[in-house]
């Protein structure tokens, strides 16, 4: 091996002192992440499990988070997506002890027609209680919008922020 005769002065510097790369995910066609899709149902029911020895539901604080449930009519396709949001439509919130409400009953619920985020405070007189028929330690939350072709970026679900209740000691 021959000697190049090169003599370095000082310490060598490196370029690798910050990030090396960036990743991007795009969609090709009807990408579910990038494109809005029809809800495919007219309502959603889910249960909030409560403590076993609960005797009275006093108050429930729910939040429809940023980019939460916000149903719109389907304005049809644009060049990038098969479905696009049209105008905002109302949805209705109701509760039950057994998860059974007809669509007509759900349509009598509290009406919302605004952009998330917002808080929803529910007082005891609107909540199911352990004395109700069919109570199985769950508060069933019913969200009703009435048209399976409506679209929403957020899923039909609300975040539980606070639950005040009385318990048997």
């Amino acid at each position, binding site marked *: 091996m021959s000697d190049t005769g090169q003599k370095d002065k000082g310490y060598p510097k490196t*370029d*690798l002192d*910050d*990030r*090396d*790369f*960036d*990743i*991007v*995910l*795009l*969609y*090709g*066609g*009807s*990408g*579910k*992440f*990038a494109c809005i899709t029809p809800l495919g149902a007219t309502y959603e029911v889910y249960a909030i499990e409560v403590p076993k020895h609960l005797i009275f539901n006093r108050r429930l604080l729910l939040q429809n988070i940023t980019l939460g449930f916000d149903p719109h009519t389907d304005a049809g*396709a644009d*060049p*990038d*997506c*098969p479905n696009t949001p049209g105008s905002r439509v109302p949805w209705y919130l109701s509760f039950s002890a057994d998860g059974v409400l007809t669509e007509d009953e759900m349509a009598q619920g509290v009406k919302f027609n605004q952009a998330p985020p917002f808080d929803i405070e529910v007082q005891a007189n609107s909540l199911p209680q352990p004395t109700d028929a069919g109570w199985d330690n769950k508060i069933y939350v019913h969200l009703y919008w009435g048209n399976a072709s409506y679209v929403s970026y957020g899923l039909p679900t609300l975040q539980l922020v606070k639950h005040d209740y009385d318990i048997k000691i």
Partner: protein
Amino acid sequence: MIGNKIQPYKYSMKIGTLADFELSGSSLVGFYLVPPKNAITLENMIMHFKIQFDASSAAGDRKINRIVVTDNSWSVRTDGSEFRADYFRPLTVDLTADGNRIIDFKMDVTSLINKNNADYAEQYGADPVDINWVFVEMPTGINDLVTAGVIKLWKVEGLYTTKGIR
């Protein structure tokens, strides 16, 4: 004899490696190898890509259709047309996964790059700059999957000329 002292630009090698990245709801994945801040040109680029598609993916969707080098993001529309960036060099590769749902390949993408697109970008979505995005395009069927697969390895090596004289 006339002495001629050649003063070539310095070369800088840069390597970026992504491992065990869960691919979700996307059939177009782009990799931007961040050049050295003082880069002038990108001379060579080599990549190694290994993906294992999820068992829930359709067998016919376990494919890599094209490798694309572009200076910005683009999209394939529902009617099959493309919204394209200024610089767009696709190469159809049509690779199919093996019995373990894996595609593993190495490729010299030098022929696809724009050598002058060696700008340094702070982050994706910042002001448009001349950069080389390397995209892997898969069938649109995997767009509908929350878990389309796992990119086991994505390694990109770039050889840049940089300012300063050796």
